[in-house]
């Protein structure tokens, strides 16, 4: 595993066929310091992966063309180091026994809690050696 560069920003790909979800997720993660790219279909997501290395994917499950699970499995094949999260509003439709095989670190449910989400992603990236600046605390400056 290649160690991260001196002060690199983790690259995050978010895939969801619902644009409002993409916006809301970006909004929640804005201050986390990720380099975020978004895709509205799995196909689009795969072509982004083909253009360069990603560190982490956060994907919806129910999407046109293929399911998020299929997409993540394919993504992991192309970039085996990827950390994958699946996020769905219909957890019952996800075969949990498939999760591990498809390289999913954790299954998240919609609606999600922003703070929990941030923590989960941050922990995953810290495990990969990324260093996050301390959470912005305005009090210290005030």
């Amino acid at each position, binding site marked *: 595993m290649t160690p991260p560069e001196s002060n690199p920003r983790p690259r995050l790909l978010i895939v969801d*066929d*619902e644009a*409002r*979800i993409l*916006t*809301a*997720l970006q*909004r*929640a993660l804005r201050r986390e310091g990720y380099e975020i790219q978004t895709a509205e279909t799995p196909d689009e997501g795969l072509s982004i992966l083909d253009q360069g290395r990603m560190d982490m994917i956060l994907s919806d499950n*129910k*999407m*046109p*063309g*293929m*399911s998020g699970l*299929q997409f993540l499995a394919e993504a992991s094949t192309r970039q085996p180091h990827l950390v994958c999260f699946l*996020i*769905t*509003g*219909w957890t*019952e*439709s996800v075969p949990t026994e498939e999760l591990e095989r498809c390289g999913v670190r954790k299954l998240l*449910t*919609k*609606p*999600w*809690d*922003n*703070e929990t989400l941030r923590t989960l992603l941050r922990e995953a990236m810290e495990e990969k050696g990324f260093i996050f600046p301390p959470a*912005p605390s*305005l009090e210290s*400056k*005030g």
Partner: protein
Amino acid sequence: MNDSNASVRVVVAQPQIRFGEPDPLDTVKALQRLGGEVDVEQVRTASHCIALASEEDTALVVVDYALGEDVFQVLEKFRNAGPPVVVVHSEHSDRVALEMFRQGAVDCVAAARGDYQDVLPAVALEHINRWRAQKEKGVVEERIRSLERLNDAIVNEIPAALAVLNSQGQIISLNPEFSRVWNADVDVVAGKPISEVLPHDLMGEAGLAELLEKTAKGESLSAKTMRTTDEDGTQHSFDVRARLFAEDGHILLSLSDVSERENLMKRIGELQAYNTNIIQGMNSALVVTDTEGRITSGNRMAEHILGDMASTGRSIWEWFPDLEREQVVVSRTLDEGLSFRGAEVQIQLPDGRHLEIGISCAPLLKDEGISDGVVAIFQDLTEIKALQRQVLQKEKMASIGHLAAGVAHEINNPMGFIHANLFQMDEYLTDIRKLWTKVEELQEGIGTGNMERIDEVSRSLQSMSQELDHEFLLTDFGKALQESLEGSERIRHIVRDLRDFSHQDTGERVPSNINQCLDTTVNLVWSMMKHSVVLRKEYSDLPEVQGYPMQLKQVFMNLLVNAYQAIREKLGDSGDTGEIFLCTSHNGSEVRVTIRDSGVGIPQANLDRIFDPFFTTKEVGEGTGLGLSTTFNIIRRHGGTIKVHSQAGKGTTFEISLPLEDDPKLRDLPTG
């Protein structure tokens, strides 16, 4: 003899009268004196004479010797058989008479005699009477012979054992049946007492000996059934008769084996009891009517449900006082011989209440397939209908349950970003508060006029504002708010559709817009299928249908969900899409809805069963098997039809026709 006085024919054979010869008419005249009973006919030749004389009723032939050779022909002809022949002649010699007697004439009368006119009739009458007597004797003998033949045939062929006994009960003769049944050779047993041939129990306990004694004494006794048990323990029954012949004191004993008949009667009795048990004990009501619809029999259940209306003699038409005869389903069985099952009809009870029954009718067939009335079996549907309504509602709830998962996804998406946005806006608000605190500090500073303070706070505000990116913050706050509002609007729609769908109809038929029903349903299921299905619509402007819109939506829901599942099953994980084609049209009398999918199709073997309740090819727990059966019932309730065409691997088409005319007969059925 009865015909002794019937007229008889006398044939007179004479030559043509020639001038100067004795008047031959004297012969005819003489015979005519015998009166109307004797029919005198004249002929001129032997052949005519023979032809006429050969007829049955010719009693006498009188031949004139003047016929010459023909006389001999006639005599020769009737010498051994046929009517007697008398010869009349005008010769004066006895030689003629002698010759004629030799040739077979029964008499010879000389016309020359003065008393010819008296003698000939007397002679003729004597021979006619003799002929009659002989003929009568022949008839009697023939009758006796024929009676004997008949008697022999009866005695030999009758399936009864016959024995003639003398007054001491000794066997005189037996018929073959007796020999066969009792294994008795007439040559061996002749002269032996009958008690040695017949079984003891028949003679004794059964009372045959007593019967014979009484008969011998002249008592006239009616036939008795007597029983005997053979070595195998099998019981045989005999119809026993004895009759005394007064002339010689002989007794005719007749034994007919009636065991089979008795067994049959017993079996018939058992079968009748069996049938009665079934008919009376069955859980359905049954009535049988004649061709006029009058009840000829009914069971207890029929009376339990309908009271006196199901009694024998009442008319089945009374059950439907508001309907014309031809409107009543039963008339189709009576008039056209049709059988049908499970028709739902309403009966009006005497107290005015309406009772729903399910009725099945079949023609009551006589020989050669002629209808002799109707057999009708029916059930009170009140309870069943209530259950049906429950099932209908359950089925609807099941399809809602099926939807719920898809709908949950559809709600959770907007919920997801609304929730995240709210959380974010909360954070934004915290930031805004912080900035506002700085603004307040600045105001305070301005109030005091402390420029240093003002400067410090102002710089701090600016740096905080930069750090928080306040322009972005305010813009994004607005965006997040707007997006969340949109999201909540989406949820509101979904919930409204869902509520709309789970609604129950009021029970009244209302004008329903089929296109609208179809669209509302599509909206609801669309989220579930949008990734796998391309929807193609071809709607026509439709007149409104009198119906139950909620039920129709349920029909469309069932068919759309099936179509979607068929497509999913065909596509698997391929990522392709299938097509659902929706088409509506009308032809002035009915509205037609076509729902076609490009799914897996239905195997031919299952096509006939898909509308059966509880038929499902899905895994246990995945389908109730009631979807299409419910669909079928709802369409039927609208007086419509549903047809299915399917090709395995190619897809399935459902075609629904709904009549525009509001048929009052269909109104009776309550809704689910």
